[in-house]
């Protein structure tokens, strides 16, 4: 193939609104969209529209127009419907579909505050709504041990995120550490593996933030230190009371799920008795507990510090996660 022929093909490729295949002198092939050319090179964007390659013209032996020409396709569609308009009720997003909701499920309203702060809104009541990168985010406090089935049915999200505080089962975990679940199990039941795409996106989004990946275990009630030690042998990283039920409800609804937990109590500690039950408010029970003795007061102070750390970590993690997941969905 002569230089003149290659030059002619390059001009055609630049004008072509579809993918082309470059055959190179070494026999290799490159497929992509030609968006630029210079005197000695052309620039190509690959088929995933992520990788740019500069190809010297003297290494090209042929160019074939292998992808569909989007301009020709538009012409054909227009000719087919010539004069006929799209109906009034065509979806507002045209052929692209609207980005769906992310549903964040937490157990307690105290956890909902972290979600609200991450979304930049104020938390009033048991539901918080925000918008991140064009995607709606709804967070619901479903109560301790609940499965969120109703919230999933009501909001029909594209992703369910089980979120909130948890107890550490691994000795290296301290208050404020984040855990992204690779799976979740419940005593006597099968392990549910976390769907890979949102989990991977989450790990990328949390780059630079202290976090761990591993299994969660869901218990029926707040576990004591002894119970935690016996669960620790299972190699699970953390224990909570909702992730398994939420994951099961999401799986049954055909919605991918993701779990992000912040450690509030480490392996060698547990929550004080008043905090082991779901309540409307924790202020009075906490004060009563603090007045029961200096040791209880110290324990409570430590819990407050840990809860603050966990809340801040959750907020920071969620801020990154919601944005990354919303963008990933928008690109999908």
């Amino acid at each position, binding site marked *: 193939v002569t230089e003149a022929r290659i030059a002619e093909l390059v001009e055609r490729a630049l004008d072509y*609104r579809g993918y082309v295949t470059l055959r190179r002198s070494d026999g290799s092939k490159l497929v992509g969209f030609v968006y630029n050319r210079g005197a000695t090179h052309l620039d190509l964007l690959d*088929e995933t529209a992520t990788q740019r390659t500069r190809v010297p013209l003297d290494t090209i032996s042929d160019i074939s127009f292998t992808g569909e020409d989007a301009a020709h396709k*538009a012409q054909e569609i227009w000719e087919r419907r010539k004069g006929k*308009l799209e109906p009034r009720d065509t979806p507002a997003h045209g052929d692209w579909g609207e980005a769906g909701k992310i549903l964040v499920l937490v157990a307690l309203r105290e956890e909902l505050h972290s979600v609200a702060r991450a979304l930049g809104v104020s938390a009033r009541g048991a539901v918080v709504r925000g918008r991140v990168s*064009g995607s709606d985010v709804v967070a619901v406090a479903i109560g301790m041990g609940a499965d969120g089935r109703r919230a999933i049915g009501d909001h029909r999200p594209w992703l369910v995120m089980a979120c909130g505080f948890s107890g550490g089962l691994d000795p290296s975990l301290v208050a404020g550490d984040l855990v992204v679940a690779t799976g979740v199990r419940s005593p006597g039941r099968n392990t549910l593996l976390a769907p890979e795409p949102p989990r991977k996106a989450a790990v990328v989004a949390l780059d630079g933030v202290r976090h761990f990946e591993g299994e969660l275990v869901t218990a029926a009630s707040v576990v004591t230190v002894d119970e935690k030690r016996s669960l620790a042998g299972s190699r699970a990283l953390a224990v909570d009371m909702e992730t398994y039920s939420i994951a099961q409800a999401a799986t049954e609804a055909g919605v991918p799920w993701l779990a992000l937990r912040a450690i509030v109590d480490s392996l060698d500690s547990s929550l004080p008795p008043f905090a082991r039950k779901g309540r409307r408010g924790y202020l009075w029970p906490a004060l009563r507990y603090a007045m029961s003795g200096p040791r209880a007061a110290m324990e409570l102070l430590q819990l407050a510090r840990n809860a603050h750390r966990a809340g801040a970590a959750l907020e920071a993690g969620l801020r990154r996660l919601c944005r990354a997941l919303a963008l990933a969905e928008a690109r999908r």
Partner: protein
Amino acid sequence: MGIPAAQMATVATYLLKQRLARRDRYPLVLMLEPLFRCNLSCTGCGKIQYPVQILRKHLSVEECVSASDECGAPIVSVAGGEPLMHPDIAQIVRALVEHRRFVYLCTNAILLERKLDEFEPSKYLSFSVHMDGPRTEHDHSVCREGVYDVAVSAIRAALARGFRVTTNTTVFEGSDPERMRAFFDDMMELGVEGMMVSPGYSYEKAPDQDHFLRRGRSHDLFSRMLGSPKRSWSFNQSPLFLQFLMGKIDFECTPWGNPTYNIFGWQRPCYLLQDGYAKTFRELMEETDWSKYGRKSGNPRCQDCMVHCGFEPSAVRATFESPQAMAKTLATLVTGRL
């Protein structure tokens, strides 16, 4: 003229600085295309014909701000594609406004009403709503029923919340001047700040090739459309550009006046032609062979072009460079006659 005083002052100061720096080529409006995706398939549009993977891509907030900083133009026209389909469009606009750019967010307004909550009214932000004429003509131009009504409702909602709203109208062959004049009345009655008009560019990739205006026909049509303009009409454009459309004055194209940035980079040479891309704004300005473009160059793709992105900067530049042109502009502003 429907251009706020603060914007006029900023542009005038900017132009003065360019003159003092003896710059021959400088940008006036950055045409920022953060995505090519659109929720319409308009008959005269040659902007969105790409493979689906490219249509799914968009510029990040940081890329948009960086392009605006690199270019330095005081005005940023956010086009596309439909910018309101960008997941981070509100952040992009907020960031540009924080950088004190006058932002014109060009939209078909289908998503505008539901997205208004994401934006804050500002003297730096104007929604530039695509309106190609009266109801029938507009719906035909965008190939969908009911879009005119949706856009009118969105304009009302945006105005009620204190946003600046302008319209942008592309005129094609077959437009009825009298109906267009009535359309201008309707838009001004709605309360828009100003209107922008331009003939459509004959995109080679647009599905409908039969309705692009030739130069002579443009003069005739715009003369009838804009002749004896009503006092109530307000155009968000240079009066000299409108006179250029009417054939009363001639300009050469300044393609560098409205440089275009999108996912491929800095588009050569202008918003309408795609002769490749430069990696940096400097490369675009310094390494593009500008002599190959414009009517005098003989480039066949430029012969019938009278589009605002090439000639509005010429008109604005002329206003500030020639006393006669300035006098003409002032006369138009005082008398309201084009």
